[in-house]
């Protein structure tokens, strides 16, 4: 039943295309995103739980939820 390997999912921002509107910041339940210097969104990986709320909200659709290998 329990899977031993669970992949972590994280939000990844295409910073080049980000318009720094901050919509993602407002919806993140973990407060894992900030707008860095008014240029682009930046995700604090350690806080992000990969819920995907930000990706759904982003008007430019430049956030992707990617899986990464479990490290522990």
């Amino acid at each position, binding site marked *: 039943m329990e899977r031993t390997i669970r992949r972590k999912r994280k939000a990844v921002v295409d910073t080049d*295309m980000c*318009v*720094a*509107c*901050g*919509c993602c*910041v*407002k*919806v993140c*339940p973990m407060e894992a995103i900030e*707008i860095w*210097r*008014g*240029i682009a969104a930046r995700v604090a990986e350690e806080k992000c739980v990969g819920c995907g709320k930000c990706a*759904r*909200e*982003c*008007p*430019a*659709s*430049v956030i992707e939820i990617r899986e990464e290998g479990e490290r522990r």
Partner: protein
Amino acid sequence: MKKHWYDYMWIVSLAYLILGFFNILFAWLGLLCFFIPLLISAVKGTKGYCNRYCGRGQLFGLLGGRVGLSRKRDIPKWMKSRGFRYGFLAFFFVMFFQMLWNTYLVFVGTADLKQVVTLLWTFKLPWQWAYHGTLFHPGVAQFAFGFYSVMLTSTILGLITMVLFKPRSWCVYCPMGTMTQMICRVRNGRK
């Protein structure tokens, strides 16, 4: 997520649009949404206005989100390209200066006050019901009509893209958003 006072700025934005139907001179207040974002980005080097205070963005977020007036589709690629965003900003500027020029003509007396609101830079709507004379020069009113046209036009464009794409699609090509991001880029350095 805690609510802050500035999460209710959408009420101010809505009130602004409504007031323009009663007295066009209120349109002058809209200058605040030009100068505040620019000041924040120039002085603080952030997009604090977009990220926190902008009522227009909140209004679209609300109508498209909670009220459900948005299809929530991805915006087409070309609309988020730099070319389109900067191009729209440039177009916006040209139209803005044209509006200032028309105001100037009224100020110097070359042209008469036109009590119309121009939508999408094309459609002229009679709007005399919102004008009851002014203690100031008619040019003051001309600017109000022109500026309100800008605000209403951008609201309509924003509503259209809200319905078609994500609620806050307007923020992708909003001239103020593009401009403040540009200022931050220049000020804080690329990287």
